[in-house]
């Protein structure tokens, strides 16, 4: 009996933590390969660069777990970012004190992210548009709106707006603080709330979730609300970090976010994924990019490597799932003492 328990515990551990082992392994390799890798400046720099897409990745994780996704994140960043910048500039011009303008602009960014995602949720739940199509439509609309509002011009001279993306608290850069806080909130939400349990159930089997009394539509709205807040925050951080309101910025950010989620073990068939996995996925990509930069790997080659890693992550996932299925095809007498 004891051996069985140890065997199955080891299996569970291997299934759940393999991604973190990969991350640790990569960390060791990177620090061996280049002494600069381990410097606080470098690590802090990697984290700062990753922060915006990682924040998006947490939103995508929740959506993918629920059997959905958001292709509009990059465009909505552009829209919410430029609106945040514009409201900051407007408020300062109307001699609102700087702290008031900061709060106002932050709120404007988040509100825009939320508004766009409520429309996404409405298309998906009320009009039954597939999430892929609904958010693809929003991607185009939000980009258009950002360009329309700015007449295609970049907004410059942001003044104190840069504190969101370039400031720091106790010498920790603010974007990293945001990323860590959002990670904790996402982890908590998935692990500790009814919403979290419901979203896993919906992604795993929507009809069974309905039959268990879960108000599926409401849960989907909440998922997009959550995603909207994150996209809005990401918009503010991004524009602030680059010190400009870029209506053409953040293109393809949603794909970087999806990459992190997928590498982190979130399953596109729904029902599987964790916040910690996604964080690890984001850092695996970040470490790889960084070490390839430090060792002077050609940037085109870098892209190929990144793509190959997505494919490998998913192939591994499918392979591991297949193994589990073969073993379980016997009913409940298996899964014991399997240490191979």
């Amino acid at each position, binding site marked *: 009996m004891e051996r069985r328990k140890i065997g*199955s515990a080891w299996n569970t551990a291997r299934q759940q933590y393999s991604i973190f082992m990969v991350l640790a392994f990569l960390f060791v390799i990177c620090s061996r390969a280049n002494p600069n890798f381990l410097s606080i400046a470098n690590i802090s720099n990697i984290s700062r660069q990753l922060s915006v897409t990682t924040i998006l990745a947490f939103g995508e994780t929740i959506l993918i777990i629920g059997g959905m996704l958001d292709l509009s994140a990059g465009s909505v960043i552009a829209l919410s970012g430029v609106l945040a910048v514009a409201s900051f500039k407007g408020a300062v011009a109307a001699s609102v004190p700087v702290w008031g303008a900061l709060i106002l602009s932050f709120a404007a960014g988040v509100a825009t992210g939320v508004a766009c995602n409520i429309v996404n949720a409405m298309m998906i739940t009320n009009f039954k548009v597939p999430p892929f199509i609904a958010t693809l439509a929003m991607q185009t609309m939000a980009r258009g709106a950002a360009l329309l509002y700015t007449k295609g011009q970049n907004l410059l001279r942001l003044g104190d707006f840069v504190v969101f993306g370039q400031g720091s608290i106790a010498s920790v850069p603010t974007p990293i603080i945001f990323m860590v806080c959002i990670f904790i909130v996402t982890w908590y939400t998935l692990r500790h*709330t009814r919403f979290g349990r419901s979203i896993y159930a919906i992604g*795993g*089997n929507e009809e*069974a979730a*309905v039959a*268990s009394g879960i108000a599926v539509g409401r849960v989907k709205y909440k998922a997009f609300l959550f995603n909207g807040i994150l996209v809005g925050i990401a918009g503010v951080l991004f524009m602030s970090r680059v010190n400009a309101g870029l209506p053409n910025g953040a293109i393809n950010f949603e794909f970087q976010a999806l990459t992190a989620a997928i590498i982190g073990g979130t399953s596109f068939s729904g029902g599987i994924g964790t916040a910690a996995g996604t964080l690890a996925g984001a850092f695996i990509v970040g470490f790889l990019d960084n070490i390839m930069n430090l060792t002077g790997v050609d940037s085109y080659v870098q892209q190929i490597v990144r793509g190959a890693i997505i494919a490998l992550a998913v192939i591994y996932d499918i392979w591991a799932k297949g193994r589990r*299925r073969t073993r379980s095809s016997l*009913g409940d007498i298996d899964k014991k003492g399997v240490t191979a």
Partner: protein
Amino acid sequence: MSNEIRLRVAGITKLFPGVTALDGIDFAVRKGSVHVLCGENGAGKSTLMKIINGVYQADAGEIYVDERPVRINSPSDARRLGISMIFQELNYIPELTVAENFFLGEWPVNNFGRVDWRAIREATAELLQSEGLPYSPGSKLRDLTVSDIQMLEITKAVSKNCSVIIMDEPTSAITQREVEALFKKILALKARGVSIIYISHKLDEIFRIADEITVFRDGKAVGTRDASEFSIDAVISLMVGRKLENSYPKESVPLGEDILEADGISGEAFRNVTFRARRGEIVGFAGLMGAGRTEVARAMFGLDEISGGTVKVHGRAARITHPADSIKNGIAMLSEDRRRYGLIPMRSVRENCSLASLERMIYGGYLHSSEENSLVGRIFDRMRVKTPSLDTPIGSLSGGNQQKVLLAKWMLRDPDILILDEPTRGIDVGAKYEIYRLMTELVKDGKAIVMISSDLPELLGMCDRIYVMSQGTVTGELKRDEFSQETIMKYAIGAMDRARGHSYGAA
């Protein structure tokens, strides 16, 4: 039946990591005979059939066809040797036509690589006619019933000169009348010299067709005998390795007030249905497939719309438009389609069990893990759920244990009314018995149970009252002392013959 052996396996052993799934199986099928395999889920029947059909390869042992040793490395090898399998869950493409399905994967092509559809249609039409099947080659599969498709699969196998047909639980999803048609077909196949390996849990029906019976337990063939030398009790005790005193643990329970009343309700597939259930009562719904029983249950639970009539719960009118409404009213439902409406396959048994009662473990803003573990653990103990751990994905349990977890999910809510739609379909005898035992326990607690079942002995054994449905209406109501299979079938079929007997009686 002759004594000539068509298919024989000797010493078949199959190991899966950590388990011996099959342990030296010897087994033979005679020409033109029906050989029935029984055993609990996980006993090894399906694994053996998959080896014979080439899906798995044995780790040791030999397979002989007509006493010549053969190697079967894939289902197409099996097909070439004249072995074909009709799976329990028929996999078919709903948009295909009958003709396309018949030639699936082996469409005849002309010299330019163009598929010869006319030849396909003509060949199919001829075959359908010679087998007396009443559909056209152009009908889409989605317009046919499960039983029609099963017949097609059998016809397809026979048309390809298969001499051994494996049927895995062929009657688990078809009606009594369709079962009769299937049995007739099986007799006809036997007469042609076809051998049939027939896997079933339904002990009463296997005795009607079996020539020989082999019982499996824990990866071993524990007994093979001529059917005439076996009895149901003997088979059961071999299967479970213990004696079942009484397969229906029915106890008489004092009945309380009406807690569920439906008065003239109508929906898409039923009309003017009136029934009631009292505290302590098990109310059955009998009828053929398509009679509207499942639809009534779904509507009562809020999955489908009720377009007319009133529903009262605890004597008060209740408006039910979503399962959340019925759950609030103390109603729970176990669906007939476990995979579609029950399981979240990749999530743990713990999460599946908690899903309908999240407010019992998630309150005050966070998940009380230890409370969840003890609630779920206690209910699992009470229901004797066998699972390696609470973290095991529910999809990897056996059917019987999955069903127990789903039932446990509702028990955790402590509902007053349980609607059980085919609660024992496709699960092994041991698990069935546990579910009956639990039902008895529940009604003793003053709950009401509404049970839909296509297994008549089960309804007769467990219910206090049975409503019979046909063609979307209730055609009969029987008290326990009026129960008989014949009466129920009369009510179930009677209306059907009047209304549209044509589509069923054909095969």
